[in-house]
């Protein structure tokens, strides 16, 4: 077992562990903080998979911007711990659990069947960002520009939705 694989596996275990912590915590702020750690682990995984640019984006945009937005909204709304109360439909929860186990089994079987089916890479990827930029600004220029319009639309939409209603 080489160092690269060891680091990847350790980071993946950390990611999964903190994602599980996020799921079981009843307090949303603690959930968000656990998810920050999880996303940092995922960034380490991306570096090990020779995608350092995506790792940087993961830290800057996901952990730095999206999760901070979540924290802002949580503190704005002052959302507390989920109250422990009797579920109005316990059968729904049980069915969800069964569906989850079935889904996990299906996914595991599928991945086990497919994991080894990939041929060896033609050429190893480098840590260089320049080829990615060339691809992004040449072949994928139109989707890239469309994305900027989408982000603008999301900005306007969020503003309109969150605005206080004023009767003029």
């Amino acid at each position, binding site marked *: 077992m080489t160092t690269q694989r060891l680091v990847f596996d350790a980071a993946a275990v950390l990611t999964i562990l903190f994602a599980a912590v996020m799921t079981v915590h009843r307090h949303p702020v603690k959930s968000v903080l656990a*998810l920050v750690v999880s996303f940092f682990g995922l960034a380490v995984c991306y570096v090990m998979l020779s995608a350092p640019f995506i790792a940087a984006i993961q830290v800057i945009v996901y952990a730095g911007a999206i999760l901070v937005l979540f924290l802002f909204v949580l503190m704005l709304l002052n959302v507390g711990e989920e109250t422990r109360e009797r579920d109005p439909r316990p059968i729904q929860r049980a069915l969800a659990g069964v569906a989850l186990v079935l889904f996990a089994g299906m996914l595991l079987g599928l991945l086990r069947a497919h994991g080894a089916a990939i041929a*060896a890479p033609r050429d190893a990827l480098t840590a260089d960002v320049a080829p990615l930029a060339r691809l992004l600004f040449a072949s994928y220029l139109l989707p890239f520009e469309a994305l900027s319009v989408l982000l603008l639309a999301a*900005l306007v939409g969020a503003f309109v939705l969150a605005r206080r209603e004023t009767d003029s």
Partner: protein
Amino acid sequence: MIGSIPLGDVLLASGALFTIGLAGALLRRSAISIFLSIEVMMNAANLALIGYGSALGTLEGQVVVFFIIAIAAAEASVGLAIFVALFRHKETIDVNRINLLKW
């Protein structure tokens, strides 16, 4: 194999992460927790894309992940704005109490 990481490891991690996200989305009651679980599922898909991209020696996987992260940012801003508007009307974001569209 990516360097010395077998693709199976990457896919296993991705599958586990997706299942955890799904569990959160199905079992939580706070709308924000459900939203966070959806983010986890999206990241599981990202991990699988990066793994396949590296295994095949192409950069397309990274380009797709780049787009997904940008769209996730847009989705998060609109989703959280919806929660703020919802909280203003109902004073709660517990999904058991938000049943306007239920018959």
